[in-house]
């Protein structure tokens, strides 16, 4: 009896400790691809927690974690003081699940990248004999497409614009301009080409796009790339079809049926932001639908269908007509968020703040304390998180209008303009150069004409403008020695060294030779004469008109008469 009780209590103790570890595990940092369930791993994660305080665990696939937790605590379900996130297995697993998220990444050039992802997971089997008829979160049109055409994977995207990798980095979901469609069919399909043709026509109807132009002239079967993104053995590439229509233009008629596929439509949640007049007024926008099968747990005992709908867009700072670098949800989408989609199990907004660790480049408002880290595209990035399922995110105004304001690092500018023949221009600027960038400083100038005595003896050589000076403290890879009295070679001791981690450098640019227009140096007297002549012409004509009056012209008498008049005048007799 005692032994039995002892073994019972020992079992209880083991189970209790395991459940405690599971609880601790759930509350700790969980990087994306870690797998859960081992006690040693739990110890590792416990260490990680110690290093990164107050960081919320981020889950890419929530259902997997829950499965792992329940597998660990499978034996005991009632006795453990399970926290709210551990689901006891007596409650049936939700058959379908919907998550929505929006990632906003400010780009260096001042543009902003917004990426929406809406994911519906559904544990069902479309390939069963008895057709699936009860659709809840998964859209019926796509479900029927999958079952009718025996689709294993379907990826379709509509993009307007070209992704500028050099300026914007890498997108989360890349896509080519125009429309792209690639489909893996099941092994059971006999005539793939006919099925492909029918599929493209049906999709053309669903998305209101002209996909019916896809035919054998633009379809290929790639053998090396476009391997299935979901589960399944890599089979014969004859079941793969890839087509692209680069000429396809994306418009509101494509966005509207796309939005209808979402469980909440465009009425609640993040999809309210997808308004076509603002979304299409961007440099790049792309909407896509990805359907594939994924594993539900780590051992992949059961699979479920995953439907991901994504929208990627890049908003141009200059196109939007703003002078200041400031972005808000209202400026981007002309809407704000008021609630999460009620059908969503998670609805989050992520802002990429990796380049802004202490908030010196831009500031977010309203502020949030939730932070998250994720490894994406080979880089560990930090995100500020807004959880839309919580009421506190929306504050007192019941709406969330995120504001990202860049801090202008104007620096210090000291400018003394020049006075002709008295002093020169002086421009001093203290600026902070952003990394990996090119900064241009331009100054507009006008050429002046000087007095002829102010030109040097060789005026056509030009005038020199002195070099510009750049003085900077450059970070040093080697610790410098601040003790300047120590014995050192002369070449290393010219500039004083105030701190160890940086050294002073001064760079001079090339001087500028400016060719000024010259007057004609041989002509001073001529110029004075000619100009005075013109002024005299004005003076003369006005003088004439002012001092003289009109008289009738007397014809000129002949020479004889004039002499006679002169003699008569002398005699005092009236003239002829």
């Amino acid at each position, binding site marked *: 009896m005692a032994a039995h009780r002892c073994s019972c209590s020992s079992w209880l103790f083991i189970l209790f400790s395991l459940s405690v570890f599971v609880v601790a595990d759930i509350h700790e940092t969980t990087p994306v691809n870690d797998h859960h369930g081992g006690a040693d791993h739990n110890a590792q994660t416990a260490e990680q927690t110690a290093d990164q305080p107050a960081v919320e665990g981020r889950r890419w696939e929530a259902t997997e974690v829950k499965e792992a937790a329940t597998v660990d605590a499978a034996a005991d379900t009632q006795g453990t003081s399970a926290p709210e996130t551990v689901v006891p297995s007596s409650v049936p697993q939700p058959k379908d699940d919907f998550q929505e998220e929006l990632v906003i990444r400010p780009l260096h050039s001042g543009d902003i990248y917004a990426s929406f992802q809406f994911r519906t997971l559904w544990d069902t089997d479309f390939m069963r004999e008895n057709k699936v008829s009860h659709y809840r979160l998964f859209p019926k049109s796509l479900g029927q497409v999958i079952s009718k055409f025996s689709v294993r994977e379907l990826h379709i995207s509509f993009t307007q614009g070209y992704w500028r990798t050099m300026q914007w980095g890498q997108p989360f979901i890349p896509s080519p301009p125009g429309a792209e469609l690639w489909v893996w069919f099941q092994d059971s399909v006999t005539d793939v080409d006919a099925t492909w043709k029918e599929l493209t026509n049906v999709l053309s109807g669903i998305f209101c796009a002209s996909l019916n132009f896809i035919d054998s002239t633009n379809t290929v079967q790639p053998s090396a790339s476009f391997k299935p993104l979901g589960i399944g053995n890599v089979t014969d590439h004859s079941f793969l079809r890839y087509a692209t229509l680069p000429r396809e233009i994306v418009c509101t008629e494509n966005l509207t049926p796309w939005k209808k596929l979402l469980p909440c439509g465009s009425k609640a949640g993040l999809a309210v932001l997808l308004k076509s007049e603002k979304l299409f007024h961007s440099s790049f926008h792309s909407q896509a639908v990805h359907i594939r099968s994924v594993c539900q747990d780590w051992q992949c005992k059961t699979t479920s269908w995953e439907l991901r709908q994504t929208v990627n867009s890049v908003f141009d700072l200059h196109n939007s007509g703003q002078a200041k670098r400031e972005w808000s949800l209202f400026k981007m989408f002309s809407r704000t968020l008021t609630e999460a989609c009620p059908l969503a199990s998670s609805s989050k907004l992520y802002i990429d703040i990796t380049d802004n660790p202490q908030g010196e480049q831009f500031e977010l408002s309203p502020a949030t304390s939730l932070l998250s880290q994720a490894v994406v595209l080979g880089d560990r990035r930090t995100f500020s998180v807004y959880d839309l399922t919580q009421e506190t995110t929306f504050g007192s105004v019941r709406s969330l209008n995120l504001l990202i304001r860049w801090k202008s690092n104007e620096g210090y*500018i000291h*400018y*003394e*303009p*020049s*006075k*002709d*023949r008295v002093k020169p*221009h002086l421009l001093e600027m203290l600026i902070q150069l952003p990394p990996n960038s090119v900064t241009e400083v331009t100054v*507009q100038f*006008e*050429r*002046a*004409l*000087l*007095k*002829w*005595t102010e030109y040097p003896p060789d005026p056509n050589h030009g005038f020199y403008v002195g070099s510009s000076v750049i003085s900077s403290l450059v970070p040093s890879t080697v610790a410098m020695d601040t003790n300047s009295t120590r014995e050192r070679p002369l070449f290393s001791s010219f500039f004083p060294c105030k701190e160890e981690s940086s050294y002073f450098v001064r760079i001079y640019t090339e001087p500028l030779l400016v060719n000024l*227009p*010259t*007057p*004609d140096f041989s*002509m*001073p007297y001529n*110029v*004075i004469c*000619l*100009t005075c002549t*013109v*002024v005299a*012409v*004005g*003076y003369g*004509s*006005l003088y*004439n*008109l*002012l001092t*003289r*009056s*009109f*008289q*009738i*012209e007397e014809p000129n008498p002949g020479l004889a008469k004039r002499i006679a008049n002169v003699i008569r005048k002398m005699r005092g007799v009236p003239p002829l």
Partner: protein
Amino acid sequence: MAAPLTLLLIVAVTIRAALFRSSLAELIAERVEVVSPITAWKRVVEGLALLDLGVSPYSGDVFHETPLIIYMFHFLVDYAEITFMVSLNKNIILKHFVVEFRKQKFALEADRYPMDSLELIRSPKEMYYIPLKVAMFYLLNPFTILSCVAKSTCGLNNAVLALFFLSTIKGNVLLSAIFLCLATYQSIYPITLCAPAMLYFMQRQYIPVNFRRVSFWWFIVQYLFMYLGSLFVLICLSFFLLGSWDYLPSVYGFILSVPDLTPNIGLFWYFFAEMFEHFRLFFLCVFQINVFFYTIPLSIKLKEHPVFLMFMQLAVISIFKSYPTVGDVALYLAFLPVWSHLHRFLRNIFLVSCVLLACSVLFPVLWHLWIYAGSANSNFYYAITLLFNVAQILLVSDYFYAFLRREHHLTNGLYLKRKDGSEATLILK
């Protein structure tokens, strides 16, 4: 009259709007014939930037506008294009009214003259289209279009002068003094327009122009009091706006002492570029006095005709000022249709118009050859400047001649006969 005027306005605004949006706007804003160091828009922007930076805009040699202009553009800098177009339209409406009132004077004179010269008097029917012609001459003049597209503050100056004309012709003494004071405050030369304004008011109020009458002097004192009073107020206001007297040497000292020798369409630049240092002050005084010098003689000769006197004064200012631009030329050219009845007495109009046209075309060509191509030198551009100014002087003196001749015919009859009955010719003696 309203419909054609509206149509004209629409066409003018369309042309300017189209040019504002095109790439030509920047090219035009840099042309030296269209903008001068006093009126350039680039300098206004520079002054505003300096003000924002906390440095006095007058500390450098770039900005030569008055403080009121800075503050006006401080608020209107985003709407600069609209401001210039509004001032332009105001300009034209005012000239329209000016001409309307001229008609009345003509009607009064009709009964004073001998019978055969009645054909010289214009009937109201002939004068019906003059306001429209004046509007057309101003709005569609390429000089005005260029000046407006370049956003030169000359347009604002012209608007203030047009307001001055309007208030003078309407008989409002106070407003006329105030607007004249504003125009003088911006560039000094409109002070000479005091004389025609006073003569007009005296004529209107039937005060005889006689040195011995008290009423004459009393009116002059009144007008000058209003004028100088508003000038004083403006100058003190400018002082309080910026907190220093810096602007006086920068604005008025600049206009009077001509330190900047950038080429323009006037006579000053090359003259003072090639001047011997010893005589610089002397010739500076001579050239500046030349502008003000014609006021008294012209006023004495034209005391019965103050409106023509205003036109003459305006022309003299535009030709002989220190930094003229095509905007100033366009202002007095716009008034030519008012004197369309003088056409039969003009002697050189064909020559003058050909020379003006040729010079306007040659200005940019020779500038390009001098500065960019390097195959000409400054003498080429200078020669065209001289020719342009000679043509303007010829135009103005021709109109003066025609005016005086018409007056002579009005008093003495149109078809003059000599003592022996043959047809007579008139000369100036």
